[in-house]
Each structure stands twice: as C-alpha cells, then as structure tokens.
C-alpha cells in the first residue's frame, strides 16, 4: 500500500510561499498531487487551532549516538523519535565514537540509516524513516589539531562541519576551517563556548546557580566566543566568498545582539536556538516547571523562583544541558531572535542519554536533553502564549533550517527537499493543536528519557509524518 492522503479542510502552513490558511492537500502514491486553498463556505470553521499541515520539520542539530553509545540512542530509535516529533530530515552531529571525520565513517552512518530504513519498511510498504544528513568533524577525532578531510567528505555529501559538544578551540584552526570549508561552499557549525570561562560549570551563572551552589557558566563564556567567531568570519569572508558560519544553540541576549549586528553588516552568518532555551529557564534546575514567559513580570524582569511552591525537586539531572538553561530574560531574548529572524532556525540539540548515565549527582551528569519529540509541543506552547506566530514557528522548523543547509548558492538541502511542490514526494507533518499527549518514558520513542518535561501534557499531537513519500510516523488513533 503506497501513501494516499486526502487531507481536507486543514490549516495549511506553507513557509516557502509565506502563506497559511484553510486548504485541501491530496497525496497519491506518495506524491503531492493537489494543494487547494479554500475560501468562502469551503473554508468556514477551519482555523489554526485544529489540524495543521506543514512541510515536515528539519532538525539542524541532533545526536543519534551511533556508533559508540547504543545505550543512549541508535540511528533507528533516534529517527523513530524524530518522526514522532514531526521531523522529516535530521542532521546528525559527528561527535560519535568514533567521530564522523572521514568518508568511511560517513558511509558507515549511511549504511546504518539504510539498514534502519529497511527494517522500518518491512513494517509495511510505504513505510520509512526520516532522511539523514550528517555534519562532519572539523578536525580528525575532534581533537582540534588537524583538519578532517573536508573535500573528501564534501564529495561524499556532508552537510558541513562541526566540533559540536565543544567549540573549535584554536582560533587558528577555526580560521583555517572557515576558509577551507568556504571554498567547498560548506558552513562551519560552531558551538560557541570559551572553555576558559566554563571549566567545571554546572548551571547558567545567576541567581539559581548561586542559591543552589552550582558552579556558574557565565553568559560571557558564550558571547566572547561568538565575538571571536564573528571577528574571524569577517576576516575570512573578505577573501573567501563561500565562507559561512552557523552558530548553534545560542542562549544569551548578548549573542543575539552580536549576530544581529553582523547580519546587518552582511556577514555570512546564521544561527539557531533550541526549544528548551526559548521556553525553559534556569529556575527549572531549582524545580520550577513554569514556562519561561510565565517567569517574567510585566516589565520583563524575572520573578522570584522561591516566591512560590516549585513543582519538582531541585537538581533534576534532566535539566543539565550545555549551554545551560538561562535566565527567563535570556529565554525572552531567544524568542525575540526567532521573531525578528536573527535566529534562522529552531534546532533541537536532541541529546539522549541512558538512564544510568543521568542517575548520578548533578555535577557528574552528562549534558543534554532528549528533545526531538517535545520540540513541537514546546514551540506550540510559545505560540499559544502569543510569544511566536504559528507561521514564524513553522518557518523556523522548515524553510529556515533548509536555507541554512542550502547556503546562498541554493544547493539542494537534502534528499527531503520538503517544499509543498506539486509532483514531488510528500514530506509532510500533520498535527492537531487541539489534541494533547503526555510526555513519559513510554511515549518517548527515543532511548533517551532525559526530559524535564516528563509528566507534562503538551498540545500539538503529531498525527502523521511523511518523508519522501513514505510514512515515518502515524498516530495509532489515526485511521489510515
């Protein structure tokens, strides 16, 4: 049975044409056959608070953990989780063991993806998994010394290069990498962190870290790294037209000020924010579980985290993440950056960990939140609170990250192109904003149950995800 869909009287969001409204979408044999925008009586009663259809989401930043840490995630479980989250294309981070630092390692990842997809399709004709692209390591073994064989990786289809989990430590290596990758037309994706300021850090520096006695990760540890990266980008881009930089998981107000200013000057820089940095805040480390926008007073200053009973205990290791959860004011800056386009994309930084690894003292726990399945629900909570428009939120999950992958040259962003174009294989997400689901170890497809949202009900239940004309996730409540 191939994929045939008649999605009638849904709210369609088409970020590539900047259009949203009531529509019918028809898919036959996995291919988009018709998109009809509805008006008048046909459109009556269709609104943006019910069933929404959009291009399947694109995640610029996910850790699939295979090879090297099967207890945390595998390609198969990570992609099942991605599909459950509405994602049709996942960009895998190269900090596996061994790292993805040559064409052989990339080929092994692609073989693992193909094997997982083959198993998924054995579940029924027309079934598959989200598409995968990989970032390659900037340096061999991510050791920071020798550039990885970037041309070899580019020829093999790598999306770009990143040392994520850590910054490119040496400014000289970073400068050379930008120039080398730039000539190949590929971006460097940097995790901006001044390691001299963050050694031993356990939580975002500020009120909550102080009261809880956790070593602070200062905002300046990110801002100074962003400043370094932008200064070097400006230097390289003057001579290498293809050079470009993507800054991932920016989390503090000062970083967005610098990126906003750099973009205004025409520097080839893009950036993303995570759902947790725009919707959660450091008070979650103390046990609070209110959204970041509910933790601010009308003047935009943080409310007293100890001024009310907290919903959970402190030191829950599921809140330990790098960069750390920040103040509610910084979370507001993240949302402002998404609103005004300073942030090009919302990327999950899906970082699954095994339960044993996280069942330790806070300061000894590995960093990361399992977030690819909760991203939509978290972002829709921001939409429901009036913090983002639905159209902008969807764009930051689709067209925005596709533009980051494509670059100014407009090269194809990946096997799942994702536009709602007639005659192309359908990569769609269908979700119901009026339906909820509860985040729990049982409902998360990821092996990583390390989510501070466990127990929480999220609106925006994904009903169906497709990738390249194949069904990758279908809610059991949905009749085929």
């Amino acid at each position, binding site marked *: 049975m191939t994929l045939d869909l008649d999605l009638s009287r849904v709210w369609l969001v088409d970020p590539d044409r900047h259009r949203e409204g009531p529509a019918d979408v028809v898919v036959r044999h996995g291919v988009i056959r018709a998109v009809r925008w509805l008006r008048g009586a046909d459109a009556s009663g269709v609104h943006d608070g019910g069933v929404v259809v959009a291009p399947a989401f694109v995640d610029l930043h996910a850790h699939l953990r295979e090879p090297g840490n099967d207890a945390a995630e595998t390609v198969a479980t990570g992609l099942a989780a991605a599909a459950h989250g509405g994602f049709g294309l996942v960009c895998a981070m190269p900090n596996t063991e061994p790292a993805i630092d040559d064409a052989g390692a990339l080929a092994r990842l692609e073989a693992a993806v193909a094997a997982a997809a083959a198993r998924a399709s054995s579940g029924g004709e027309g079934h598959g998994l989200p598409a995968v692209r990989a970032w390659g390591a900037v340096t061999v073994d991510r050791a920071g010394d020798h550039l990885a064989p970037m041309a070899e990786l580019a020829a093999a289809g790598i999306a770009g290069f990143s040392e994520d989990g850590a910054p490119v430590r040496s400014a000289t290596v970073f400068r050379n990498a930008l120039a080398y990758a730039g000539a190949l037309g590929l971006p460097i994706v940097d995790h901006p962190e001044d390691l001299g300021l963050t050694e031993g850090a356990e939580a975002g520096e500020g*009120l909550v870290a*102080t*009261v809880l*006695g956790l*070593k602070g990760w200062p905002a300046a540890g990110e801002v100074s790294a962003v400043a370094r990266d932008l200064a070097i980008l400006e230097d390289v881009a003057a001579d290498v037209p293809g050079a470009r930089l993507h800054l991932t998981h920016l989390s503090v107000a000062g970083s967005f000020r610098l990126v906003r200013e750099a973009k205004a000057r025409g520097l080839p820089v893009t950036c993303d924010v995570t759902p947790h940095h725009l919707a959660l805040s450091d008070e979650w480390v103390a046990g609070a579980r209110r959204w970041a926008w509910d933790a601010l007073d009308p003047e935009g200053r943080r409310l007293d985290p100890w001024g009310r009973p907290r919903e959970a205990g402190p030191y829950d290791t599921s809140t330990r993440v790098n960069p750390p959860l920040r103040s509610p004011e910084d979370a507001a800056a993240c949302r402002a950056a998404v609103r005004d386009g300073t942030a090009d994309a919302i990327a999950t930084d899906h970082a699954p960990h095994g339960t044993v690894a996280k*069942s330790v*003292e806070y300061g000894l726990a590995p960093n990361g939140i399992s977030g690819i399945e909760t991203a939509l629900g978290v972002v829709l909570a921001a939409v429901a609170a009036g913090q983002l428009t639905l159209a902008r939120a969807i764009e930051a999950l689709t067209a925005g990250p596709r533009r980051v992958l494509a670059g100014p040259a407009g090269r194809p962003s990946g096997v799942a192109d994702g536009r709602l174009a007639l005659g192309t294989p359908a990569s769609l997400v269908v979700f119901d904003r009026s339906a909820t689901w509860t985040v729990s170890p049982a409902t998360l497809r990821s092996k990583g149950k390390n989510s501070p949202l466990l127990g929480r009900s999220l609106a925006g239940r994904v009903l169906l995800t497709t990738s390249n004309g194949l069904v990758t996730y279908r809610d059991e409540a949905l009749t085929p």
Partner: protein
Amino acid sequence: MSPAGGAPASATARPASPRWRQRHLLDVDSLDWDDLRQLMAVADDFATATRDPASKLDVLRGVNVTILFYEASTRTRVSFEVAAKKLGADVVSVTASGSSVTKGESLIDTVRTLAATGTRMLVMRHATSGAPYLVPGIFGGNVINGGDGWHAHPTQALLDLYTLRQVLPALDAGAADGWSLRGRKVAIVGDLLHSRVARSNVWTLTAAGADLWVCAPGPLLRGFEAWAAAGAAGRRFTATTDVDAALRDADVVMTLRIQKERMAGGLLPSLAEYAATYGITRERLAAASPEVLVMHPGPMNEGVEIAPDVADGPGSLITSQVHNGVAVRMAVLSLLHAAEAGAEGPG
C-alpha cells in the same frame, strides 16, 4: 507554651511534634520561622536532658543511623555520631576511602546497599551540590544533609542560630513570636562563593529577621550580589565588597574559612593580602558593636580570616558552636524520626 519548657522526660519520650512534617533535612530553604523555633526548643530539651555527659536516651533505640561521608570532616561527623549515640541509635560511620566507593560504586548503589542492610536514617556529606537529593527517591528512611558541595550545611546553620539565641537577648522582647534577630545586624565575611555554610545561613538568619550583610572580595562574592538584590523568597539582605561597611555596628560577625587552593584560580592574590584587607582583627572589629559576637564554622586559618586574639577573645562563640552542635543534631534526628513514625503510623 513551646516545648522549650518541657521537662527532660518529654525528650526521652518521642518529642511532641505537632507541626514538624519534614522527613528529610536536605536544605533549610523550606523551613519557616515556626519550624526553626520548634527545632531550637527541642534542642533545648536535649541540652537539658544530656547535661550529664554519661546520659543516654532511648529516642532512637533500635534505629540504625549511617553516617556516610564522601568528604573529610571531623567536627560534623563526630557531632552527628555523638548525637545519634546519645539518642540510643546504632551508628555506623562510612567514609568514602574505606568503602567500595573507591572502586567506583555509584552513590545510588551505595545507598541501596545501606538501605538493604537496615539503615533507617542516613546522614550524608558529599562534595557535589545537590547530591543528597538523589537519595529520597530510592531510600525509604530519613535523609540528613551533612553538607553538600557549595550548596547547604543545614545543621551548621541551625546550630549557629541556636547559639545566637542562647546569648543574644531579643531587642523586641514583647514580640508575639518571641525571640528573634530582628534589629540585629549580622555580617558574614569570607569566601561566600564556595561556602555551603554561608548559603544555609542566608536562609536561616533572614528567616530570623536579621539585618544580614555578606562580604567578600569581588571574585568570592560572585552571585551573591544578584541573590541579595533579588531576595529569594522575599528575603532581603545586603552583599558588599566593603568590609568596613559590613562590620559597622554589627552585632554578630561570622567569618568563613579561606582555603589555600583558591589562589590557584586567580580568585585572590595571596592569603596575606586577604588577611590585610578582610581578616577579622581587633582593629577592624572596633567599628562593630562593643558587644560584638564572633563566630566561625571551623576549621579556622588563624591569622588569615580571623586573628587569634579575636578567635579566643571575649565575644567568641566558636567553642559554643561546636558544643551546641550535638543538641541541635539530636533535635534534627529526633524530629525527622518522629515525622517518619507519624507518616508510617496508623491513621
């Protein structure tokens, strides 16, 4: 009438605890003034009941108390051991170097092992902030934080408050809620950044109504400026690098240990410069109240954060602090145990 007036007999029976509900003592942030007053009243009972050094009570008879210390400690560990033994408990002391912890056993596995061998009350000291919070979820008994990282040292703050209550008369003697630190200026001077004693004292001293000042050189004060300005739970205090302002007219000065390893990270130029600029000396104390009281949680670096003649001077409470630790820890153990029994009792 508070239990403070109770005869020793009331302590030998399970202390009446109509109000106390906490099964664990992980932090002092959730203790309100009534909790603190009740705890100090129970400590009074035990101080009276154990005035005879040979006295032993049966409040914790048959109860296994394990004192699990992942960090070196003399006074806290000994004080808990003595307190538990005076209450009639069976006490086991475990230190990290003498257990399978050195073989890499996780904290959770260690606690499960202790629980399986019958431990009902666990006193824990750990170098990582928040470590005791891992325990209640896997351990049915009571957990007492004996100090965790930079975060909290609840019994130290409680014994500090108890010690002040012994010697400082209330300024507002007619107040409906009795003794408090209202109208009293308390200055904490030293390495705030790394101090669990300071953090716990911020909560208890502000709960008691003190005009609290915390003071350190800039790098050792980081974060406390924001805490003081925000006033967590609505509790205001003052953070300053100006030691003279902190000491001016202070009724109490609490000094904190300056550790030698702090120099490595560039937090301080030298111990000598600290002693010269922030050390609590007779000259510097001249600006404080004439009857100023001086406290130190120990261990002291005499000649660095505190001058020897101040540590041994007329206003020094340092020996009383150590002495009072036993009665306060007896109160903590008995109240938590009673809350436990209440939770498990019929109805």
